[in-house]
């Protein structure tokens, strides 16, 4: 019972699955409906309890490409880049 306070979604699903196994195939559809209802109930319970919910952000995600450049790459290229600048003074 104490598990319910953590996240009811997991506990309810486990319980209903056991019923489906013992009652056999004939009542499969009925059980499935029950599982679905239990799931929905669990979802509602999850919203009320301490479960973490994930929402899609309302703003587009912007990824700054510069972040991918690492300092070691800058270190490796600095010498060559310095020469390039010196040899092309008209465009720098």
């Amino acid at each position: 019972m104490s598990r319910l306070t953590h996240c009811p979604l997991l506990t309810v699903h486990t319980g209903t699955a056991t019923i489906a196994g013992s009652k056999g195939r004939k009542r499969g559809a009925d059980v499935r409906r029950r599982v679905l209802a239990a799931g929905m109930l669990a979802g509602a319970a999850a919203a009320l309890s301490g479960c973490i919910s994930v929402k899609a952000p309302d703003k587009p995600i912007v990824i700054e490409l510069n972040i991918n450049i690492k300092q070691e790459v800058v270190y490796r290229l600095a010498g060559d880049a310095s020469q390039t600048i010196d040899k092309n003074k008209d465009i720098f």
Partner: protein
Amino acid sequence: MARTTAFSALIAAAVALPLVAAPVAALAQRDPAYAAARAAGQVGEKMDGYLGYVTPPNPALKAVVDDINLKRRAVYSEKAQAQKATVEEYAFTSGCLLIAQTQPGEKYQAPNGTWQTRTSAPPQRDSRCL
């Protein structure tokens, strides 16, 4: 006969040398419009290794600066390939150096994206710059 050939080769070289040297000398200098815009703070060095407009440019200046940025990109691409790096990496590294080389009074882009005027103090640069 051999001496005549050598002599004429020397003459040919002497004639050809200024022809080869002249374009190189011309290339080594900044376009006057670019140099003036740079000194006036109309264009500045961006963090990404390209020139940016601090104030809206007139069409003539825009043509010159856009052309320079295209040439820069071509040079960065070629050199990056030789160094097995990406164009962005090579351009960013160049940007670090170009910002460091700005003269007092010239504009550069700070890590927060704002345009800053270079003073005698070191410029504000990205933490990855050396």
